[in-house]
């Protein structure tokens, strides 16, 4: 009788141990700096927009409603994103939005903002980078 009880106990322990092993094997909690890096990239994309005369002029025109500036910025950012990896960029200002490389948009995202001066007014420029985790 004792032995049977021990067998049941051992079987129960084995079941729990196997569950733990499965959990340990499947649970992939790797520490990563990827979100920090993606946040830096979002900041960089805004910086290269603001610090280049050509890009900042295009941003000002785009925010004012120019379609050609919209196309210019999309092309420009598409070229940069092509060298960075599989990122989708969403640029927003004054209720307008540009989406670049957003075919297979990742589930995770980071956002950064800058105050932009177009020569007359200040407005907020927001960049959101989407990526797969």
């Amino acid at each position, binding site marked *: 009788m004792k032995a049977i009880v*021990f067998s049941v106990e051992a*079987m129960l322990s084995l079941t729990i141990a196997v569950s733990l092993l499965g959990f340990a094997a499947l649970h992939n909690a790797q520490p990563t700096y990827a979100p920090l890096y993606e946040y830096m990239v979002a900041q960089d994309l805004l*910086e290269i927009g603001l*610090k280049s005369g050509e890009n900042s002029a295009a941003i000002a025109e785009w925010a004012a409603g120019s379609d050609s500036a919209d196309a210019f910025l999309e092309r420009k950012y598409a070229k940069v994103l092509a060298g960075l990896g599989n990122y989708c960029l969403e640029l927003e200002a004054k209720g307008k939005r540009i989406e670049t490389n957003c075919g297979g948009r990742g589930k995770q995202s980071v956002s950064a903002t800058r105050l932009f001066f177009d020569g007359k007014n200040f407005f907020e420029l927001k960049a959101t980078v989407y990526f797969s985790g």
Partner: protein
Amino acid sequence: MKGIFSTDVSIAFFLAMLTLATCLSAFWLSASNYSSSYKAALTEKTAVEAADFVLKNCFPEGAAKCSDSLAYSHVLDERAQTASFTLHSNRSVSVKVVGLKAARGNGFCVRRPALLDGEEVFVEACAEELR
């Protein structure tokens, strides 16, 4: 004496040993998983830090354009295009300025967009674990 070799006791002993072995393998698996991912994260950190340092520090330590010790972050010094940057780390790390279409270097690489003469380029930092 006979009881020790009875089927029930033998099965119980076998199951107990199996449980112990499974627990030990679970521990070993978790420990080795953690160890390798920790090493990978450190390499990642080295590359991220190196790229950030070069992007935000004056040439020749970094690649940023400076005037009167004021660094213009994300605006690179023209001389940085052909320069190589030495950074002290317990990992092998190389940082260079590359064009938009340049191939990636060896190891774990990160790229940070910047401007050189008004054109978009990347500061690319690649880190590898020293063997």
